[in-house]
């Protein structure tokens, strides 16, 4: 065994507690980093990842079976630009006569496919098996929505044989409501064919359009009846996920940053505290390079163990955490996860970071002579620090307190190490709690506790049922007249073309009392007159608009100049909001498709819903459950996880620093005890030595966290927070945050302090 390895082993054995602390810090930091990178990779493109796993269709095209044939459609597969294609599959629309499974009565689009696999749109089976024989059906289901106990359910198709559910499946391409075998499809008399395409150029809607035109160039005119692009699905996905992906990305970056800094702090502290030992090794004849090797060897043991265990723990926690984080995102059965490189990168990077952190102070020791190294840190240099300590000794503070406070001044480098750990911890806690407060406020905006809302649908499209018979104004009047109704907002919508854009956007038109969205206007006001619109930050950013700007919308040959008068907090990226007065200019015959009814406090929601049924059988109402939105839940959950993890890492940093300090002051502590310092005074002195740093660290960390919070909420992109939601800092909260710095420091110091209080005086005093 080489002398270097032997000395390294001896150093590890002699510094068991410190080795464990370094190992724990590396473990927690690695775990945080694994989770952070997992979030970063998953958050970067969750839709793309899930879509790619299913080889989703860039375009789901529907062709009229009366105008084209299977043979003609098969030729499209060979057309230029077509990377892969599946189909043609027979497609029919069947009627669900009455509510079935979780679906309302109405039409159901069914596609005939022999199997769920294929070059495009690899449908994931969630339960049961694929339909292979006549009389069998596989139903499209949201993940988590299907249950095996529903297998075997029967669907009586008017004019056809009953279909038995043999499986539940999901498609990222949303290619069908249900699937049957090709034989069964023939029996259902398909009226159209479905083709699923993946194109070489599919980045924009323009590319998709031209690729589709090229692919279907030889087809009879008007045979293509509908084309659904993946971009519209992605847009719908983004609307829910984009609101919190920036926050999760931030948590990832923060986690990596803090972990690396704390590891550097702890490891370099360990090496600096070992200067005396380094001097002794040099005196024994170790060469400078051997000394550096001894220290790198000593640090590498906990670094490697911590990295491996941390990576494993992170990998175990990764899936449930990502599952929770992406709970609101529809991804089919595709797992939102990370690539193996995350684990590999952490396994390689963490020990490397530790080695670099150890190498910098070790190289300094490399340059020191043996005598210099032995004396380094053994006696403080006279200066302002000692003067401060002397002044403290003259104050009215209890001596154990003034001695503790003075330690920071006597050893400023050690104090800076401790304080930097506290600053990082407090900044993290400040940032994450601020974000949580902002998100809670955002989640609660427009929600009124104790108030029930009923959504009444009039056009039957969503529920798939028949439309209402009464006129728009009659419906509104009847809904207002029903017992319990307090506020009624009618909504119609139309698609318009925005000046300078090739894509159409939705224009929502509101009548009656302003909708809940009116309470979430961040800048400006809710539209109240003709030609006034409001939109969310995503929409405004996409179209280069801001509050006060004017633009033109086009519809059926008409055009209208509109002014952006308000910006919503969150808002649909594809829609603008306007008052009904705008409808008169563009769509005079607009008719509301839905009515949001806010009931009076304590009104009976169920009774109101029942009452709506009596107004018109074509009206379909549902009670709105007011719950915290997904973005709030996810951000708050992540805040909690990362706050706890990073606070632990910070406290461990403090623990390590105090432990080193206590070791160095063993003789001093022994002497103080010999002249009558009680164990309690020892604890008070040791804890005070870091509590002061905790206080200062808090004072520095809080503004850093506040600035970070401000930068983040100001640049969230798809969310625009009003000032009231950004201004989450109040005196009690700031006091609590300041306290968090002291708590982190005190928690980290408590164990070494108690151990110092139990120090056996006789042993430390009689040895030099």
């Amino acid at each position: 065994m080489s002398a270097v390895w032997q000395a390294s082993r001896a150093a590890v054995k002699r510094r068991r507690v410190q080795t464990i602390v370094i190992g724990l810090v590396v473990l927690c930091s690695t775990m945080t980093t694994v989770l952070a990178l997992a979030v970063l990779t998953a958050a970067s493109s969750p839709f793309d990842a899930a879509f790619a796993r299913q080889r989703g269709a860039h375009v789901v095209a529907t062709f009229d079976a009366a105008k084209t044939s299977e043979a003609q459609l098969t030729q499209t597969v060979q057309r230029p630009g077509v990377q892969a294609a599946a189909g043609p599959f027979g497609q029919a629309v069947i009627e669900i006569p009455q509510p079935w499974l979780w679906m309302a009565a109405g039409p159901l689009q069914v596609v005939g496919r022999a199997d769920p696999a294929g070059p495009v749109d690899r449908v994931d089976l969630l339960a049961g098996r694929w339909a292979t024989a006549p009389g069998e059906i596989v139903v499209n289901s949201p993940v988590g929505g299907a249950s095996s106990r529903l297998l075997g359910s029967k669907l009586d198709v008017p004019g056809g044989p009953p279909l038995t559910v043999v499986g539940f499946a999901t498609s990222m391409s949303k290619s069908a409501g249900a699937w049957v075998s090709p034989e069964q499809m023939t029996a259902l008399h398909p009226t159209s064919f479905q083709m699923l395409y993946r194109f070489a150029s599919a980045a924009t809607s323009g590319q998709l359009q031209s690729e589709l035109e090229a692919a279907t160039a030889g087809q009879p005119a008007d045979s293509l009846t509908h084309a659904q692009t993946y971009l519209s699905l992605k847009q719908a996905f983004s609307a829910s996920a984009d609101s919190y992906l920036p926050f999760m990305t931030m948590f990832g970056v923060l986690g990596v940053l803090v972990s690396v800094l704390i590891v550097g702090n702890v490891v370099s502290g360990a090496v600096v505290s070992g200067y005396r030992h380094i001097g002794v090794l040099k005196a024994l004849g170790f060469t400078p390079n051997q000394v550096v090797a001894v220290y790198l060897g000593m640090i590498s043991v906990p670094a490697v163990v911590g990295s491996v265990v941390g990576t494993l723990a992170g990998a175990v926690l990764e899936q449930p955490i990502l599952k929770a984080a992406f709970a609101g995102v529809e991804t089919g059965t595709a797992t939102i996860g990370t690539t193996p490189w995350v684990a590999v990168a952490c396994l390689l990077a963490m020990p490397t970071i530790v080695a670099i952190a150890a190498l910098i102070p070790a190289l300094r020791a490399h340059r020191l002579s043996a005598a210099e190294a032995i004396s380094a840190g053994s006696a403080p240099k006279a200066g302002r620090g000692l003067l401060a300590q002397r002044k403290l000794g003259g104050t009215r503070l209890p001596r154990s307190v003034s001695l503790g406070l003075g330690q920071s001044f006597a050893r400023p480098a050690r104090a800076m190490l401790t304080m930097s750990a506290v600053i990082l911890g407090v900044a993290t806690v400040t940032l994450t709690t601020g974000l949580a407060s902002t998100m809670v406020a955002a989640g609660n905006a427009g929600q009124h506790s104790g108030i029930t809302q009923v959504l009444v649908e009039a056009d039957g499209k969503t529920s798939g049922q028949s439309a209402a018979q009464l006129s728009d104004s009659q419906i509104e009047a009847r809904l207002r007249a029903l017992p319990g109704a307090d506020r009624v907002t009618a909504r119609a919508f139309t698609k318009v073309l925005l000046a300078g854009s090739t894509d159409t956007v939705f224009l929502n038109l509101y009548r009656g009392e302003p909708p809940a969205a009116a309470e979430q206007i961040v800048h400006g006001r809710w539209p109240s007159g003709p030609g006034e619109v409001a939109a969310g930050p995503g929409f405004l950013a996409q179209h280069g608009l801001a509050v006060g700007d004017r633009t033109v919308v086009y519809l059926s040959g008409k055009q209208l100049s509109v002014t952006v008068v308000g910006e919503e907090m969150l808002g649909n990226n594809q829609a603008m909001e306007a008052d009904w007065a705008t409808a008169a200019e563009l769509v005079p015959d607009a008719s509301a498709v839905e009515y949001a009814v806010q009931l009076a406090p304590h009104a009976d929601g169920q009774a109101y819903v029942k009452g709506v049924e009596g107004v018109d059988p074509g009206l379909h109402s549902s009670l709105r459950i007011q719950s915290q939105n997904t973005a709030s839940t996810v951000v708050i959950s992540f805040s909690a996880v990362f706050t706890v993890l990073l606070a632990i890492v910070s406290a461990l940093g403090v623990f390590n620093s105090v432990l080193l300090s206590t070791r160095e002051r063993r003789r001093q502590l022994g002497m103080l005890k010999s002249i009558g310092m009680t164990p309690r005074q020892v604890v008070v002195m040791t804890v005070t030595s870091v509590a002061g740093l905790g206080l200062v660290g808090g004072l520095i960390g809080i503004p850093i966290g506040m600035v970070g919070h401000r930068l983040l909420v100001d640049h969230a992109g798809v969310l625009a927070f009003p000032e009231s939601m950004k201004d989450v800092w109040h005196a009690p909260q700031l006091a609590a945050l300041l306290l968090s710095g002291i708590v982190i420091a005190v928690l980290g110091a408590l164990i070494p302090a108690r151990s110092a209080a139990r120090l056996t005086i006789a042993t430390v005093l009689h040895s030099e």
Partner: protein
Amino acid sequence: MHKEYGDSKALDGASLEIRAGDAVAVMGPSGCGKSTLLNMVAGLDRPTSGTVEVNGQDLGQLNETGLALFRRKHIGMIFQFFNLIDDLPALDNVALAAQLTGTSARQARRRALELLDELGVADRKDNYPAALSGGQRQRVAVARALMNRPALLLADEPTGALDSRSGEQVMDLLIDLNQMGQTLLIVTHDPNLATRCANRLIEFADGKVARESTLEATA
């Protein structure tokens, strides 16, 4: 008293009585248990069996805090390597012992200055230990030990780290203190220190008192 550390016996039936005003020197070869005896008397360690009574107080009856408070009031200690706090100047090192009892900084410093003056190092009151000679450091350490007017002053090789001239000065100091009524218990290898400063000599061997004799004061 008996004291065992694992299989090794540091004290093996040591019995000793020191009267107020005595100056007792304990001598013996290394490892004979004399420093362990001093630790027991100071309440820095506890015997495996037997009792230690100082100033009428059975130390075995006190918990750690009680022992600390007892040391604070009744025991003063000086060590071979001084054990001064490097971060504090001489004056504050001395004042510290009183400040721990709750004495105000002003009062403690006043008394500390008096002691430093009596011990001849008042002019070095603002110096940090690193700037003091060995003899000066030991005088500061003695001042600190006397700060709370202890009933018993314990000295563990007080001249062991000093040159002969400084050692002589410290010896003179101890003699003066004893003549003023201070009870002393000195552990040393140095026969010169023992014979000059003590009126009783206890020779220790194998963890017990081997021989005891009365000495004539030389001062």
